[in-house]
């Protein structure tokens, strides 16, 4: 029982730490927002709230498509997913059993963000 409590505490601490990092990242130049989704809860912070649904769908599709593709080519589980469009970029990754997607302008260094978060 004590062990399980310790584990839960650790997970909660990690999640708090992640959310603190995301708050910092959110204020950086070029960051459009993020979606963090766990099994029971989700937190979304986007500059343009009208895009919440579209971005949430894209985030979910990015994870699903990546899993399908890497499974098809037997490459193992996706660690980092990057989608680039003409002006916008999406970085998706799994952190502490949560699916995280950060939307940003193309000029932002997504590798730096990834290293900070993993």
């Amino acid at each position, binding site marked *: 029982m004590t062990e399980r409590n310790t584990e839960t505490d650790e997970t909660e601490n990690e999640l708090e730490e992640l959310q603190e990092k995301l708050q910092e990242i959110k204020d950086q130049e070029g960051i459009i927002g993020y979606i963090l989704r766990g099994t029971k809860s989700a937190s979304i912070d986007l500059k343009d709230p009208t895009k919440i649904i579209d971005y949430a769908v894209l985030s979910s599709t990015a994870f699903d498509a990546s899993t*399908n593709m890497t499974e098809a080519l037997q490459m193992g589980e996706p*660690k980092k*997913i990057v989608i680039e469009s*003409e002006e916008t970029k999406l970085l998706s990754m799994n952190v502490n059993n949560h699916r995280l997607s950060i939307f940003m302008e193309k000029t932002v260094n997504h590798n730096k963000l990834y290293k900070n978060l993993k």
Partner: protein
Amino acid sequence: MNRDPYAIALNNAITEIHKAYPDIKNSFIFTKNGTTLTGDQETDQQTINSIQESFENLKEKAKTIGNLESFTITTKDGELTLSNIKDMHLLLATSKNADKNHIHSITQVIIPTILKTMETLAPIQPQITPPKQLIVDTLTGFFAGDSVQIDTEIVKDWTKNNDDPRARVKAALTGEQSTPENIDQVKIETFGGNSTLCKVKEINDQNMKGKNMIRIPEKLCRTLEINKGDLVKVEPAS
């Protein structure tokens, strides 16, 4: 897989890239409408279809952030990159040790250059001017001469084919004229199987213009065993 010369050349390019960069495990190219142009030997069509399906779905959803340019997935075993090159998509799956600069060169320099070159050279295939089916009208009288007369628009249409830059590339490479610059001779073929070459002029009777007609001297009609109102196939003679 597509087997046209364009696809074969791309396939050769992919094969050579595989030899030069053994860290590339899988690679294939498909068009925006989902046709697989070429791919490596190791990746079966079922795998390609499955990846294409996932990618098409993602591409649709990604419209919310603008047109998708590239999609990269990193795993513990390597990296999968899907790049948008002109109106095609290139997939490269590489091992974890692959040199990122090499991959960048392939996706951003080598393949686009090959595609650009192919676009210039692929149309070297001969341009076929389709024969026109025209209705026969007979030319009679002393000034009938021995030339046939056809509509200006038809001649222009044939000449337009001559102006095709692709035809000029062919001419430059082969040193031959793919079709004459000015069409002064046509081949007439009847549905009875008779054919002849003869000089051609633009139709001079205003009332005959735009009616898909060919005016043939009476004497020539007799030779070809055709009458007024018959259909004949006409094409520029090389």
